C-alpha cells in the first residue's frame, strides 16, 4: 500500500570535520550478536528463512517477490506498485480487504511496499496466529482474484497516492527529476509510483500477465522471525505453500543496461518549490560489489551526524544551505550517489553546487582521517545494532541478503566485518573511480517564476 521513496532528509542534521588534538577512543566497535537462521527451499522453488526469537510472543512474516519498478517496461511504469495494491483485493478463499481486516482484528500489523527491485508484503501478529498468516499469504500467492472493477477502483487510489506524495508536497518530485535526468535507458529512470499516463493505460490483462510471470514460488522468499518452533513452522509452511504450483516459465530478467556517462551534464529547471535545490549526482556500482562498502563509508563521512562534512561545511559553517546531505543509493543494479542541498535565501545555487562538488572532490583528492574512518565504522556498528532490535528488522536483513545478494544469507551478518575492514585508501579509491567530472550530473532546480531566494517576484521576504 506504500511505495518506498528514497527519503529527502530535510531536517537531518549532518556535518563534518574532526577536531584535531583531542583524545578519542579508537577501540573497535562493539560487535552485535549474529542473527540465527535456517535457510531451506521447498520443491516448488520457494525460499524459506526461519529465525527463532522468543523474547516477545509475536511473529513477523514477510514475503519478498523479486520484482520491482525496474522490471517494468517503458509505457507500463508504476505497475509493480499498482499490483502490490491488488494483492489486498482477495484470493480464492479470502474476500477483498479481508487480509487486512483479519490481521487488524487479531491486533496485528500488515502492510506492503514496493522498491525498484522488490515488492515486500509483511505482517506482525501475536505468535499464536502463525497458521493464519501463512494461510493468507499462500492463498494470494496461489490464486489472486483479478477483476476489472477492483482494478479500476484501486488505480484511482494509487493516483491519489501519487498526488499526495509526489505532486502536492514541496520537493515531492525531486527524486523523479534526479532519476529521469540521470538515466537514459535503464528503468531506474522512472519513478516507482509511475506516471499518471501509464497508470491510466494499464489494463487488467497486464495485471494477470504480471501475476503469472512474477508472483511465483521461484521468485519469492518467505521469512519468518519470532516466537515459534522451527520444526513446527516448517511443517506449516510446507503444508500451506507446498501446493503452490511452480512457474510455467522462467522469470524474465531482460533489463536494459545503462551505458556509461561520458561527459559532465549540467542543467537548470523550474518547479513550484519554495527554495532552490541543487543536486550533484554520480553513477556508481551495485549492492554487494566490493566497491559498494567504501561508498557507504563515504555516505557516513559526508552526512551522518552534525560533525559530518557536508552538514558542517554547508549548513553550519558557511550557512549556505537549509539542509544538505550526500549519500549512495546502493541497490541491485548500478544506481547513484547524490548530494542534495536546499539553498538558503540570499545564497546562490552556484555557490552551493560548487561547495557540494568540493566535498566530493575532497574525498577523491585526499584520504579521510583515521578518526573520521573510525567514526564512520562506529556509526555503522550503531546502525547494525539498533537496526536489529525488532523481528521486522531482523527479517528485513535476512531477506535482503538472500534476495539481493544472490542467495548469500551470510552477508546479513558478514557485512559487519566487511565494513570494519574498510580502509581510508578504499574510500579514496572508490571516490577516484566514481566522483569524476565526466560521470557527474549537476542539477539546479529553481522556484518557478520567482526571484532568487525563492521569494515570489516583486515581494519582500517573509519577514
Amino acid at each position, binding site marked *: *500500500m506504500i511505495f518506498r521513496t528514497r527519503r529527502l532528509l*530535510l531536517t537531518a542534521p549532518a*556535518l563534518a570535520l*574532526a*577536531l584535531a588534538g583531542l583524545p578519542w577512543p579508537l577501540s573497535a566497535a*562493539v560487535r552485535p*550478536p549474529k542473527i540465527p537462521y535456517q535457510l531451506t527451499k521447498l520443491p516448488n522453488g520457494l525460499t524459506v528463512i526461519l529465525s527463532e526469537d522468543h523474547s*516477545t510472543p*509475536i511473529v513477523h512474516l514477510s514475503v519478498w517477490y523479486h520484482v520491482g519498478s525496474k522490471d517494468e517496461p517503458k509505457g507500463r511504469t508504476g505497475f509493480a506498485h499498482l499490483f502490490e495494491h491488488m494483492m*489486498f483485493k*482477495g484470493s*480464492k478463499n479470502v*474476500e477483498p*480487504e479481508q487480509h487486512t*481486516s483479519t490481521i*487488524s*482484528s*487479531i*491486533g496485528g500489523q500488515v*502492510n506492503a511496499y514496493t522498491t525498484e527491485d522488490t515488492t515486500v508484503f509483511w505482517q*506482525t501478529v*501475536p505468535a499464536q*496466529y502463525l*497458521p493464519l498468516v*501463512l*494461510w493468507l499469504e499462500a492463498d494470494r500467492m*496461489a490464486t489472486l*482474484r*483479478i*477483476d476489472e472493477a*477492483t482494478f479500476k*477502483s*484501486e488505480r*484511482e*487510489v494509487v*493516483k*491519489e497516492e501519487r*498526488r499526495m506524495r509526489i*505532486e*502536492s*508536497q*514541496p*520537493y515531492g518530485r525531486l527524486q523523479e527529476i534526479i532519476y529521469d535526468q540521470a538515466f537514459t535507458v535503464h528503468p531506474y529512470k522512472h519513478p516507482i509510483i509511475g506516471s499518471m499516463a501509464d497508470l491510466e493505460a494499464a489494463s487488467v490483462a497486464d495485471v494477470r500477465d504480471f501475476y503469472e510471470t512474477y508472483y511465483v514460488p521461484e521468485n519469492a522468499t518467505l521469512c519468518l522471525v519470532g*516466537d515459534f518452533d522451527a520444526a513446527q513452522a516448517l511443517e506449516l509452511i510446507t503444508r500451506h505453500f507446498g*501446493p503452490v504450483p511452480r512457474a510455467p516459465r522462467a522469470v524474465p530478467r531482460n533489463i536494459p543496461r545503462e551505458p556509461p556517462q561520458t561527459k559532465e551534464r549540467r542543467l537548470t529547471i523550474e518547479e513550484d518549490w519554495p*527554495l532552490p535545490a541543487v543536486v550533484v549526482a554520480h553513477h556508481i556500482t551495485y549492492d554487494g560489489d566490493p566497491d559498494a562498502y567504501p561508498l557507504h563509508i563515504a555516505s557516513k563521512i559526508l552526512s*551522518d551526524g*552534525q560533525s559530518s562534512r557536508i552538514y*558542517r561545511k554547508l549548513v*553550519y559553517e558557511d*550557512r549556505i544551505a537549509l539542509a544538505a546531505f550526500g549519500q549512495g543509493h546502493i541497490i541491485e543494479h548500478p544506481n547513484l550517489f547524490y548530494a542534495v542541498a536546499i539553498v538558503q535565501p540570499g545564497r546562490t545555487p552556484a555557490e552551493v553546487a560548487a561547495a557540494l562538488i568540493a566535498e566530493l572532490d575532497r574525498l577523491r583528492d585526499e584520504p579521510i582521517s583515521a578518526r573520521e574512518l573510525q*567514526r564512520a565504522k*562506529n556509526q555503522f*556498528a*550503531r546502525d547494525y*545494532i539498533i537496526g536489529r*532490535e*525488532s*523481528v521486522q528488522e531482523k527479517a528485513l536483513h535476512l531477506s535482503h541478503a538472500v534476495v539481493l545478494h544472490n542467495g548469500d544469507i551470510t552477508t546479513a551478518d558478514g557485512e559487519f566485518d566487511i565494513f570494519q575492514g574498510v580502509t581510508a585508501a578504499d574510500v579514496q579509491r572508490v571516490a577516484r573511480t566514481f566522483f569524476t567530472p565526466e560521470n557527474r550530473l549537476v542539477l539546479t532546480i529553481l522556484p518557478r517564476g520567482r526571484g532568487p531566494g525563492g521569494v515570489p517576484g516583486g515581494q519582500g521576504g*517573509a519577514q
Partner: protein
Amino acid sequence: MKPPRLRAAGVVPLVLAACALASASLAAQDSARWKAWPGSRPPRPLPASDMRFPPYEVRTLANGLRVIAVSQNEQPAVTLRLLVRAGSAQDPKGKAGLATLTASLLDQGTTTRTAEQIADTIDVVGGALGTGAGSDLSFISAVVMKDSFDLALDLLSEVARHPAFKDEEIARQREQLVSAMKVSAEDPDFLAGAVIDRLIYGFHPYGVPGSGTPESVAGLTRGDVARFHRDWFVPNNAILAIVGDLSPQEAFAGAERALGGWERRDVPVLAFPEPPPATRRVVVVDKPGAVQTEIRIGNVAIPRKHPDYLALDLAVRILGGEGSNRLQRVLRSERSLTYGAAADLQALKQAGGVVAETDTRSQATGEALRLAVEEFWKPIREPVGEWELANAKAYITGNYPLTLETPDQIALQVLNATFFELDLKELETFRGRVNAITVDDVQRVSRLYLQPSRLSVALVGDAGVISAQLRAVGFDAFEVVPIDQLDLLAVNFRRGSPQASNRQP
C-alpha cells in the same frame, strides 16, 4: 497508547482497516491454477502464551528527577531520553517558537564545549544525540553502544543543564527555523494541520504553531531563551528513561552520578485558558493549481487525563483508527476518493481534540468533506455495532505484545504514563479496562464530544475549484485566505490584520 506529542517525530505506519466488499469476482477465476487450489477456511490459532507488562523500575532522585530503567540484554546499546515538562504551551505571550528555538540550541554549545565539540564527541563513538520540543515538553535523546553509556549520560547532563546560548548560535538556529518555515508555508499537509489546530484551540497555546511564525521567531532574544531554560529545565520538572543493555542498578547509579547534582527549583505555575467552545468555521487556504485538497475536520474534546479518555479513544478508532476505520472504508475502499483517511484523538496535557484527516483530488473535495462529516454524525445517531466495537477492542488488546517488543517501546509507555501523571498500574490493567467498554459507553462519549454541527473545517487547495463544491454540500459560509497571505496568529488568518492572544504573560 501514544507517546507524548512530539511534533518533530515519527512516521505512523498506515495500516488499512477492515472491510469486506463482498464483491463476487469471477473474471480471472477460471484458470487451472485457481481450480486446482483447495477451498479452505482460516486455520485455528496455536495455543497462546500470555504477555504481561515487562519489568521496569522507577525511582525519584533526591532532587526530584524521576528515573525510569528498562533493562534488556539482546543488543549492546543504550538509549537515554530526558523529558522536561515544558514545551510550546509554555511560550510566553508574543513569543511563539521560544520552546522550539530553546530546544534546538541545547546541543549547540555549552559552557564548556562548542557545538562542534559536542557533535564530535557523540559522533565519534557512533552515537546519536537529538533535541526538540513538542506542545507540552522538551526532550533530549541519545543512543550509544553500551561502552559509551557514561559518555552519553555526561553529555546529556551537560546540554540539559549548561547550554551556552551564544548569540552566534541563536542567529544560526533562528535562520534555520525561518527558512524551514518558508518550506512549511507551501506544504499543504503542514498548513491544514496548523489551521485546524487554530480553529479547534483558538488562542489557547495548542492553537498556535509550536515553531512560531517568521515574525515571532525574529523577535526572540537571548534573554527569552535563557529565561525559558532557567524557568523550566530543573530536575523536579523532568523525567529520564535509561533503556538497554545494563542493569537497573547501573542505570540509577549513572543517573545519580551525572544528574544528582542538578539543583531543584520551583517552576512557574501557569493558568491556561480553556479552549473556546466548538464553533462551525470553515477556512480555505487557497493554493491555485493544487491537484489535491488537504482536508481536516475536528472539534475540541478532552485532555489525556480524563475519565472518558479510553471510551472516546475507542469511538475515534472506530471512526478512523487502526482496527476499524469507517472513514477509510467509505472514502478509500468504497469510493476511491483518497489514499488514506484517518481520525485521531489528540489527548494532550491541558486539552484535546478530535481531528479527521484525508486528502482527495480537487474535484472531489465537496463529496469527500460531506462523507467525512456524515461519519461524525453516525455514532451519535445510532450505536456502533457490537462486532465493530469487538474488532476495535480486539485490535488494541491483541496489539499489546507488539507495542512491548523493544525496550524503547516499553520505556515510552512508562514515560508516557509518567508524563501524563497516570497511575502506572494502568499499564498492567490496560486490556481489562479496554474490554470493559460497552457500545453504550461509545455512544455516550460520541454524543458528548463529537459535535458534527459545530465542526471546524480546514481545507488547503484550489479555492477556484473547491468553492462551488462547498456550497453544493451545504457549506455556504467559508473564508478564503490566499496561501501567501496566511498568518496563523491573525484572528482572520490574514497578514496585516489584528492578532489576538489570551496567552500567559
